[in-house]
């Protein structure tokens, strides 16, 4: 059996397969379905400094091979997370050895910095800085489009953050390689991409958009080839690790991202379709590595880049 064990920013991982933020809850939700000893880690639901209800109106809309969502970063706030949710994640870490990754969004630079300061003093392994949520007005996405703005907020957070810092990018970025280089230069330890693609759906009966915000985030297998192209670009643009995500539903999908240069991958919406997905992706990846003669996942990384 090929060895799935790897590491990310010095954190040992059971496998390169992580649960993506916003699709894995805080971990316990999937415990009845997933053998977490096969999973590398969980990125918790996106946090903001202060808790918020999220968006009104319809929040979900199924599309061909995908799902649009407009949750709007519903979350209990950073302090509640640290007091109530983080202990549950740390208990899973204790039991199964998964890495605990907190995802942090923000409405402005002060919120990002204060949130990061609190998380930096907590038990999380990695902070994933979300500059890419498409569903909150000025909620991160403002920083996710222009490389300069992304670099500015990354640098501000970097100054208060000792923990490994991974910046999660939006596919709405004007230019992916420029964006990657900007956050690397600003002190990011790793990059994850992609967040959801902005899409739109119309309710023809009501003659108006399905979502109150008009636009919503598209995820699922429908976006996978575009996500993979962006991960390929990112891995070619920076020296820091790139974590790939976007529509991964099978082990073969995961291997494509790894061969494109991804240090690890995240399974997102696939967990909604099949609650076992994080485990099945890892196990299928293992079988693919065996079939192709790789002894370790690390050997396969970047294999497609020649």
């Amino acid at each position, binding site marked *: 059996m090929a060895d799935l064990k790897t590491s990310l920013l010095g954190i040992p991982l059971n496998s390169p397969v992580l649960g993506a933020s916003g699709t894995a809850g805080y971990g316990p939700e*999937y415990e009845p379905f997933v053998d977490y000893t096969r999973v590398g880690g969980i990125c918790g639901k996106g946090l903001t400094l202060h808790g918020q209800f999220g968006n009104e109106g319809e929040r*979900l809309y199924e599309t061909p091979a995908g799902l649009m*969502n407009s949750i709007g970063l519903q979350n209990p706030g950073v302090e509640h997370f640290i007091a109530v949710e983080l202990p549950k994640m740390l208990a899973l870490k204790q039991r199964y050895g998964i890495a605990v990754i907190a995802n942090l969004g923000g409405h402005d630079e002060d919120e990002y910095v204060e949130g990061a300061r609190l998380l930096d003093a907590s038990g999380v392994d990695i902070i994933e800085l979300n500059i890419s949520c498409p569903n909150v007005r000025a909620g991160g996405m403002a920083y996710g489009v222009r490389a300069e703005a992304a670099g500015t907020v990354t640098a501000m957070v970097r100054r208060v953050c000792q923990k490994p810092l991974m910046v999660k990018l939006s596919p709405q970025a004007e230019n992916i390689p420029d964006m990657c280089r900007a956050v690397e230069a600003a002190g990011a330890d790793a990059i994850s991409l992609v967040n959801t693609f902005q899409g739109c759906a119309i309710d023809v009966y009501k003659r108006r958009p399905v979502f109150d915000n008009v636009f919503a985030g598209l995820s699922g297998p429908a976006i996978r080839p575009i996500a993979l192209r962006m991960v390929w670009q990112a891995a070619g643009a920076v020296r820091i690790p790139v974590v790939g995500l976007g529509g991964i539903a099978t082990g073969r999908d995961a291997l494509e991202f790894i061969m494109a240069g991804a240090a690890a991958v995240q399974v997102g919406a696939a967990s909604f379709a*099949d609650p076992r997905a994080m485990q099945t992706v890892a196990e299928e990846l293992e079988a693919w590595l065996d079939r192709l003669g790789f002894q370790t996942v690390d050997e396969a990384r970047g294999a497609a880049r020649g």
Partner: protein
Amino acid sequence: MNVQSCKWEQAAVLGSERLAPDIVRLTVAGGPAGALPGQFYMLRAWQGGEGPFLSRPISLHDADAGTRRFLFQIKGAGTQRLAALEAGWPLTLTGPLGNGFALPDVLQTAGDRPVAVVGGGIGTAPLLYLCRRLHAAGKAPDFFAGFRDEPYGLDAFAPFAGRTALATDSGAAGHRGLVTDLLEPAAYGIVLACGPEPMLRAVAAKCKAAGTPCLVSLEKRMACGLGACLGCTIRTANGPRAVCKDGPVFFAGEVF
């Protein structure tokens, strides 16, 4: 929800019947294994990219030691696929999910007074297993059913319900009008309801006026059914709640 008792499983379809042109009753192998009335399963009868991306949340309609039944309305591509299932075909189920009707609490609240169960349209689906369990507990409920037009599935309630009262919008059967016209909550120790939101609000309002406790089972679009996607969040008196995980059964006063 006892999260440890829910699981992912494959089970064989034992049979499928049409109770109306768009209403399907599906029988699946395997007993309810501790499922409560009002709980639901995520059903999936397709793999990979060959069907809808998401599974479909369908409430437990009825169960005995070796089978579970699901009653659903064909609404779109997913329920269409579920409706096409035939005996012997495989189905994947994740569940039971949600909180369901907690029977000991219901019985304790009712005390020595009778229980009313109120259903509207396809909202009657989870109420058969509820009536069966209440009957088994020695508390056969009065059953109030409302439909737009021709009713369906009512025969199955007869063995478990005390009195059955029927209303239809069209007058096709029973009282012509709303099911809430027939309900007098003051006579009951608790009212348990599932159906369209306007009906639930009307039931809740009557119960509030009569001082009768009322539980309502809600429906919302869901992606995961597990409390992870936060797509089915509602505002309640106790803050944001996930219909899939914290519900679908709520005290009426908490949500309306």
